[in-house]
C-alpha cells in the first residue's frame, strides 16, 4: 500500500475535478500543483491561467509568484491582469482556487484580517488580491485548506471573498453573476460540497481513516452530510509518482504538510 501525506492527498483529490479542456485560474502552491498534476494525468488540455496575465504556459516548474516568468513560459499569450479578469468576467473561466484564514458554512472566505472590523486589525493578512474577483467571476470556486475550528468558523471576522454570502439567491441579489459560487472544499479530513437547496457546506466524502465526528469536531458550524458518504479515493501510485517526480520534485508544496 502506498503512503502519502495530507497535502499529497488534497492535491490529488483536487486534480481529479479539473477536467480536460477546462480553464482554471490558479495561484501558487497546492492549486498550481493540482492543475499541473491534472495536466499530466487526464487533462492535458487543461488551460491554466494566472491573474497577472500568464495564459496557457507549459509550466516548467512551480511558479513562486503568480506573476513570475514561469507563469507564461511558452504560454499561448503573455497578457495582462485585465485580460485575465475580463476572461473571468465574461464567463470563460471554469474554475479557480482560493485560500484564506477563515471559511464559513456558505463558503465565504476571509483573507484580510482577524479581530474586530474596526481598524487597526489585530492580525492583518494580505487581503483580497485577486481572490474576491475570481470568487465573484469564475464559475466554480474550490479551496484546498487545513481544517480546524479556527478556520471553519460560524462567522467570519471579515468577508473578503464571496461564497454563497448568506444563502440561496444572495449572490444573484448582490449583483454577482448567476450560476457561480463555491464548488468543493478539500481539507486534510474530507471533501465538502454545497447543498443545492440551502447553499450550506456538506461533507461529501471522508478521507481514509477519518470519521464524521472528527470532521464535525473540526468545524465551528454544523455540517450537512451528503446522502452517500464514500471514502475519498486515495492517491494512486501513478498520481503520487507524477506529483513527486514531475510536479513538485523539490517538495516546495508537498513538503509543507
Amino acid at each position: 500500500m502506498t503512503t502519502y501525506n495530507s497535502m499529497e492527498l488534497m492535491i490529488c483529490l483536487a486534480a481529479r475535478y479539473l477536467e480536460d479542456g477546462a480553464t482554471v485560474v490558479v495561484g501558487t502552491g497546492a492549486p498550481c500543483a493540482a492543475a499541473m498534476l491534472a495536466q499530466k494525468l487526464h487533462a492535458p488540455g487543461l488551460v491554466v491561467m494566472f491573474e497577472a496575465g500568464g495564459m496557457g504556459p507549459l509550466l516548467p516548474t512551480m511558479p513562486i509568484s503568480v506573476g513570475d516568468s514561469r507563469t507564461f513560459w511558452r504560454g499561448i499569450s503573455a497578457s495582462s491582469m485585465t485580460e485575465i479578469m475580463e476572461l473571468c468576467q465574461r464567463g470563460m473561466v471554469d474554475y479557480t482556487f482560493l485560500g484564506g484564514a477563515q471559511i464559513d458554512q456558505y463558503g465565504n472566505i476571509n483573507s484580510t484580517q482577524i479581530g474586530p472590523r474596526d481598524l487597526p486589525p489585530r492580525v492583518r493578512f494580505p487581503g483580497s488580491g485577486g481572490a474576491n474577483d475570481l470568487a465573484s467571476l469564475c464559475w466554480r470556486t474550490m479551496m484546498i485548506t487545513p481544517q480546524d475550528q479556527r478556520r471553519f468558523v460560524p462567522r467570519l471576522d471579515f468577508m473578503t471573498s464571496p461564497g454563497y454570502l448568506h444563502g440561496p439567491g444572495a449572490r444573484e441579489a448582490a449583483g454577482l453573476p448567476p450560476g457561480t459560487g463555491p464548488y468543493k472544499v478539500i481539507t486534510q479530513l474530507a471533501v465538502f460540497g454545497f447543498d443545492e437547496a440551502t447553499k450550506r457546506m456538506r461533507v461529501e466524502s471522508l478521507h481514509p481513516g477519518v470519521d464524521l465526528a472528527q470532521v464535525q469536531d473540526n468545524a465551528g458550524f454544523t455540517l450537512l452530510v451528503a446522502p452517500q458518504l464514500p471514502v475519498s479515493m486515495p492517491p494512486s501510485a501513478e498520481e503520487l509518482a507524477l506529483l513527486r517526480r514531475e510536479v513538485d520534485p523539490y517538495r516546495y508544496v508537498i513538503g509543507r504538510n
Partner: protein
Amino acid sequence: MPRGELLVTPEPDAMREWFRQKPKQLVPKVTTVKTAVASWVHDGEYLAVGGFGTNRIPTALLHEIVRQGRRGLGLSGHTATHDFQILAAGPCIDRVDVAYVLGLEARGLSPSARRLCEGGLLRLTEWTNAALAWRYRAAAMGVPFLPARVMLGTDTWEHSAAKEIQCPFTGMRLAALPALSPDVGLIHVHEADVYGNCRIEGISVADADLARAARRVIISAERLIPHEEIRREPTRTIIPYFCVDAVVEVPGGCYPGNMPYEYFSDEEHLQEWLEAERTPETLRAFLEKYIFGVEDFAGYLDRCGGRSRLQQLRRVELMLVQESEGMRR
C-alpha cells in the same frame, strides 16, 4: 453601502487640464535615479508601482524614495509585495488602497508591513486586484468610473469606496469603480528610448493603463535603445513617450525581483529581507547596510553579489541551471 475612504477622487476634467499641459515634444528625458525621484516624487503624494509583487518592479526607484526619506505617501496596492515592503520599511507611506500587500505570496508575511498595518499607522481602503486595474483603466480612458461585477456582497465592498449603480439597459446591479489617477507611476520596463517610448516583454500586468492614468510617470529600464528602433517596430510600443516624465537606465533595476527573460528573483536575498524585519533594530541595520549605506542602486547590487549574482540569476531565469541551486529556500 461602502464606507471606505476614497483616497484619490476621480476628476476627469481636472485631469484633462493636466494632460493638456503635459509636454508632447520629443525631448530627451534621461536622468539619474536620484534626480528623477528628487524632481518627481514629493512628500504626501500618491504612488502606483508597475509590475506585480516581486516581478518587474522598479526596485531602484523604490530604494531611492526610501533613501531620500519621503514621508506621507499614498500607495495603490494591487499586489504590491516587495514594493510595499520597501516603502513600509521607510516608512514612507501612510495610506493604501489595498488589494494585496503585506504578503510576499508563498514566501510569507512582511513583519514591518504588519507592524505598520496593525499599529494603526496606515489608513486602508479595501479593493481587489481587478478593481485597482480597472480603476487605472477608467482613468486611462478618461471616464470617471467603470462598471464591474466584483466585490459586491462582501466586507471588501463595505470597506471600499466603490458605489453601486444600476445598468440602464439591463437593470443589473453593478459595482462602479472610480477612476484612479496616481500622482506618480513608477514602472520598470525592458527597453525605452531617451524620450520614454517603452517596450515590455511578457505580461504587462496593469502597466499600460497605469502609464496612461498617472499624472507623472518615471520609467526605469533595463536598457536604453535607439529611438529608431522604436520606430522600426511601432507595434511593440506599450507606453508612448508623452506619458513619461523621466527615464532612467538601471540594468538589474528590478533585482531582487524577477525580470522576465532577464533574471530570476533572488529568493535568498528576499528571505534575508524578511528575516531582517523581525525587529525594528534588525531592520534598521539591514536598511543601513543595503540602502542608506550605499550611494545608489549599483552599490546595493554590489553588496548583493554584483554581476556574478545577476549572471547566476540569469541562468536560473533561462533555466540553464536547476533552480534548486541556491535559488530557493
